[in-house]
């Protein structure tokens, strides 16, 4: 079937939506994707018994197609990078896909929360020396930022040593969380193609 002007407008509209749905991507990569999908549609129109309607249907919605590219790209960047923000974005995306992803997201929140919290208290120690520290005594082991609330025999034990120790332990937590999640992403590197009930391979 020869495509009509209306069909080509439909294709233009599809490609335009695809382009708009790939915002977090370098222009060069985005245009490469659009060019390839455009070539694919043109190729399909030259096949007998194939139509633009059918081709677009089999490509799926432009938003969903873009999300497949975007998800893969995000996973790849996160599995290679060290940015906690990127790691949190990926784990949040995975959390929406199932229990395993949700557990990973919680792990990331706890790990970064503890690490970030310790680093923050190390920064605050010189400003609030009496409120930040590690307090120990009979039945007491407490650290972080507090309004002064302990009296003898409980006392703060680290003094200004709190700063390097909290920085070290905090960064260790951040490193451990990042490395653990990167390892997980590299190991699984999935959430890709799936078969639908009708036998067509689709991506979740």
């Amino acid at each position: 079937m020869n495509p009509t002007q209306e069909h080509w407008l439909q294709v233009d509209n599809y490609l335009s939506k695809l382009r708009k749905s790939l915002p977090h991507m370098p222009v060069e990569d985005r245009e490469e994707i659009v060019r390839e999908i455009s070539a694919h549609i043109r190729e399909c129109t030259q096949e007998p018994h194939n139509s633009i309607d059918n081709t677009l249907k089999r490509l799926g919605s432009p938003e969903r197609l873009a999300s497949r590219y975007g998800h893969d790209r995000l996973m790849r960047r996160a599995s290679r990078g060290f940015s906690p923000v990127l790691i949190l974005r990926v784990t949040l995306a995975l959390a929406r896909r199932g229990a395993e992803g949700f557990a990973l997201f919680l792990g990331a929140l706890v790990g970064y929360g503890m690490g970030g919290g310790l680093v923050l208290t190390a920064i605050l120690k010189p400003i609030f020396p009496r409120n930040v520290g590690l307090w120990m005594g009979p039945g007491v082991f407490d650290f972080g930022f507090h309004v002064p609330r302990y009296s003898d025999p409980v006392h703060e034990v680290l003094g200004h040593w709190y700063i390097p120790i909290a920085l070290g332990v905090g960064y260790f937590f951040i490193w451990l969380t990042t490395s653990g999640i990167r390892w997980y992403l590299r190991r699984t590197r999935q959430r890709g193609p799936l078969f639908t009930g009708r036998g067509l391979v689709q991506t979740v």
Partner: protein
Amino acid sequence: MKLKTEPVDLEKNQSAERWEQQMRKGALEMAALASLWSGQLYGLEIIRRFEDSSQLAVAEGTIYPILARLKSEGLLASEWVEAEAGHPRKYYWLTSAGRTRLQHMAGTWTEFSRELARLIKPVITAQKEKEEEVTK
């Protein structure tokens, strides 16, 4: 009574479908690499190769992100080539890393499927016997 059993059946079907989806999911990357073993192909040719030589009916929107991922991992290379069709085609081919990976995948797959076939042999035999009884 029927109303109570239907959702359970539906749940079972969905669960079986999910399992099948997961199983096939892992194979598609290998299939994409394998389709390029003999030489370079462009996207639609890869899709048609799947359809011609296997049971893999692939939705077009799935294969291109996979090809992009394999390329970013250095397993595939690609180049735009002007075609007689009047528009350029993006051809893909295996890099040496891609060939090595595919050989490793093929070996693992063969060994795994052989072990699994041995394990499920009694199930298949029982199923055949049941079918024969029904036809009698």
